[in-house]
């Protein structure tokens, strides 16, 4: 990390080496700099930490293409001050999906510690046994359709820009081609699994509301909140993790993220029940693009 220094920033938000997936790391002094890494294990979107991070001067932050998209949107919405950031862009060739990797490790019976190397395809090894895995089989699904793997906003760019692939929304079209009944069966099967842990909301860089419309359990109570206000808060959906409630929760989240979602895949990564959360966001994104194209054609 020669390009990175703490010269004009207080701290750098970056990644450090972890098992399989890199861990978030805050570099505060020069000794920490060599610990920073930026490779295919850095799947975590660091942008969401900016909401809670306290610093006086400037902060440096590592961003991949998708992280940069979410950061751009947050700057646009006035949630993050661009002048107080030093953005270090990392062109990304895709990150490893830990769940996919775990499945392969279990299937092959590898023992930890496992090291993963990227040579076009991935190689997993625990010292005794070596498994070669195709690139597409280990990459996170959002990386396979990434439009801009190279950050669009940055102050420093590390490495060579990477060309994006074309996103044709194949996964969305696959569901769209089903009949109404089949779609209902698919989604009721999928969403009845949801335990409403709100992990998808917690990790989302775009979900920064202190109080969530579809979460009756989190209420911001200040000393000024009256008993009346506490008692008469509208409760739009119940806490129960029941199918219809789950559907409304996911629908509202998709509505609130429509046109803002950076498609960083963080929600899917966080989901303990392996629900394709991204699919709904992508449907909204696809529709918005279609409208945009239609409006552009009209002139």
């Amino acid at each position, binding site marked *: 990390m020669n390009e990175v220094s703490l010269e004009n920033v207080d701290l750098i938000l970056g990644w450090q080496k972890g098992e399989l997936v890199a861990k978030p790391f805050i570099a505060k002094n020069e000794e920490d700099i060599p610990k920073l890494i930026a490779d295919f294990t850095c799947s975590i979107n660091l942008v969401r930490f900016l909401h809670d991070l306290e610093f006086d001067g400037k902060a440096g932050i590592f961003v991949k293409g998708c992280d940069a998209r979410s950061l751009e949107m947050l700057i646009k919405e006035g949630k993050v001050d661009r002048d107080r950031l030093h953005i270090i862009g990392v062109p990304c060739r895709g990150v490893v999906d830990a769940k996919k990797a775990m499945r392969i490790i279990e299937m092959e019976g590898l023992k930890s510690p496992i090291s993963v190397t990227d040579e076009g395809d991935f190689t997993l090894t625990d010292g005794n046994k070596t498994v070669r895995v195709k690139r597409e089989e280990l990459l996170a699904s959002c990386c396979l359709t990434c439009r801009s793997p190279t950050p669009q906003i940055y102050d420093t760019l590390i490495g060579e820009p990477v060309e994006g692939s074309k996103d044709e929304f194949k996964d969305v079209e696959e*569901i*769209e081609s089903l009949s*109404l*009944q*089949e*779609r*209902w*069966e*698919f*989604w*009721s099967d999928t969403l009845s699994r949801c335990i409403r842990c709100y992990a998808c909301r917690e990790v989302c860089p775009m979900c920064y509301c202190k109080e969530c*419309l*579809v979460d009756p359990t989190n209420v911001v109570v200040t000393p000024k909140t009256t008993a009346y206000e506490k008692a008469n808060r509208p409760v*739009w*959906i*119940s806490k129960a993790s*029941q*199918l*219809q*409630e789950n*559907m*409304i929760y996911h*629908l*509202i989240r*998709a*509505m609130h993220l*429509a046109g803002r979602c950076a498609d960083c895949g963080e929600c899917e990564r966080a989901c303990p029940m392996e629900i394709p959360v991204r699919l*709904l966001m992508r*449907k*909204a994104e696809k*529709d*918005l693009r279609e*409208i945009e194209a239609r409006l552009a054609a009209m002139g």
Partner: protein
Amino acid sequence: MKVVAFLCRWCAYAGADTAGVGRMKYPANLRPIKVMCSGRVDPIHVLYALRKGASCVLVAGCHPGDCHYVKGNIQMSRRMFLLKNLIEFLGIEPERIQVEYISAGEAKKFSEVARRVVENAAGMDGSRLKAEWEEDHE
């Protein structure tokens, strides 16, 4: 069978009023809710109605360009378009959400729309979004 109608205070609700003054008939299954602007209707209001057992939801506002608050009805139409697409994606009939533009003078249009929406709702089974434990208040 019930239909919840969100009517904007300036146009659609006034249209319903005119229909009443003109003694025009419209089905009693329609439950009007007065909102200051159709742009105030949040997707959660619509989904809440469907969850509580409404068969259909009608959102009616001023004609495009006539909004009392300049562009509230445009925002409503954008929001409802997206919500319709999303519920269709989940396998719920998109006809459950109806968007109409009714001005204060269009009493006849209001009663026609009301009849059409209620007939449409009668032709469908109960809403799939209705929570299983919700009681029937028929």
